[in-house]
């Protein structure tokens, strides 16, 4: 068996027992494992989000390989970045995009967010946060209203007179079960009613 697997097994065992030891008492092994988890997960998320979105879909649109020609100023700048050859490979980024320089806008907003780490520039994060908050609001206003309000009204509505439904069935549709949902739903809604005293 490879050395890396054996080493890995030992590391995994130490960390698992270290975290379980919290059940007995807070102790240095737990604190070590927990802080290691904090550091590793921060780096893990950074790497995954970079390699699945920023490199292919942002840099891939700014310096696509399909429109690479070394003499242009834009690609000369690219070659300067080429020092990090893993991120900026030779001849442009071949991820199936063509060039969209408008993507410099989200790139700039992203850089502003990173600069906001310093407390003096912390306001810079607001533009990026504002964009995500604005779009989330536009998506959620429709999504929640459609699926969580109208969809649920449709779910509670049923036919009072329905010959092919039994009056009572433990599992499966029945008049009784439809009424349980209707009455439960309406009384549930009136619990969250703030305009009049609860009697």
């Amino acid at each position: 068996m490879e050395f890396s697997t054996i080493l890995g097994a030992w590391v995994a065992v130490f960390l698992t027992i270290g975290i379980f030891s919290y059940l007995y008492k807070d102790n240095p092994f737990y604190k070590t494992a927990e802080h290691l988890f904090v550091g590793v997960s921060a780096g893990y998320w950074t790497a995954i989000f970079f390699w699945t979105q920023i490199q292919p879909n942002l840099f891939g649109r700014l310096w696509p390989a399909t429109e690479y020609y070394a003499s242009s100023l834009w690609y000369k700048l690219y070659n300067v970045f080429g020092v990090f050859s893993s991120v900026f490979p030779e001849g442009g980024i071949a991820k199936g995009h063509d060039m969209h320089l408008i993507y410099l806008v989200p790139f700039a907003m992203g850089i502003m967010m990173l600069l906001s780490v310093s407390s003096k520039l912390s306001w810079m994060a607001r533009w990026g946060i504002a964009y995500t908050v604005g779009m989330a609001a536009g998506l959620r206003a429709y999504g929640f209203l459609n699926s969580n309000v109208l969809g649920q009204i449709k779910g509670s509505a049923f036919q009072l007179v329905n010959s092919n439904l039994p009056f009572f069935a433990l599992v499966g549709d029945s008049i009784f079960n439809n009424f349980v949902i209707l009455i439960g739903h309406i009384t549930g809604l009136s619990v969250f009613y703030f305009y009049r005293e609860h009697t």
Partner: protein
Amino acid sequence: MSKIQNTFLKIGSIDRRWIFLIIAAVVIVPLLIPVGLPIRPTDTTKNVYDSIEKLPVGSKVLLSVEYSPSTRPENHPMTISILRHLFKNDHKVFITCLWPDGQFMAQDAINQVAKQEFNKTYGIVYVFLGFRPGNEAVVKDIVSNLRKLYTVDVYQKKIDEIPLMKGINNFKDFDFLFSSSAGFPGTIEWVQYASDPTGIPMASGVTSIKVNEVMPYVQAGQMVGVLAGMPGAAEYEALINQKGSATSGMDAQSVAHLVIVLFIILGNVSFFIERNRSKKY
């Protein structure tokens, strides 16, 4: 009589670490010595099985994997069973992830089912598109223009060079969606931004804690069914009669649930004794 009462009172105020020890023992023992209790599929699980069984051969199914190692015992057996069922019925499978860890979970499932068990060829029968960050915006991207979001698959191969991806432009090109999910983003976002706006039928496998939140969608017909936690996964394994880790986990969960019920009863007995005594004095 008061001796019995005193014992119950002592049990009632037991140090919680004894409870931890008992729970650990009660979970480990059945895992080592399986009991093999009978699994009886419920309707919500059968609905998922029937809706996949009814799909015409060669349908295009989107399988979305959004869970992490923390809920793997509940979600992974669902992904494995659904993949087996889809490959057995000769469907085309497209795999996406809304969580970063989902990529590794999906890769494990592909190695086990697609490669070892069914030996399906990549790019012809299944394709693994991978993870993209953005939560509900990713679902919106897939619904409107998938090829703008995924220009390469998870192995960095161009989408245009993959034969199976020919003719796939957005969510409406799929015939069915199954989401194996553990939280946000997950099942609820797929209902709100994909299945409801397009009408493409969907089912989901969720952790036990999330079943309560998605059940109204199942009852309203916005989802065809749901696999509810590890019990749901074990039931699906019984339906495709191929036992897996969920079935073996059910013994441990059964005994653990019974022990917790016992704790609740003991806790209440000591609570009543305490209350009667405080009334007396």
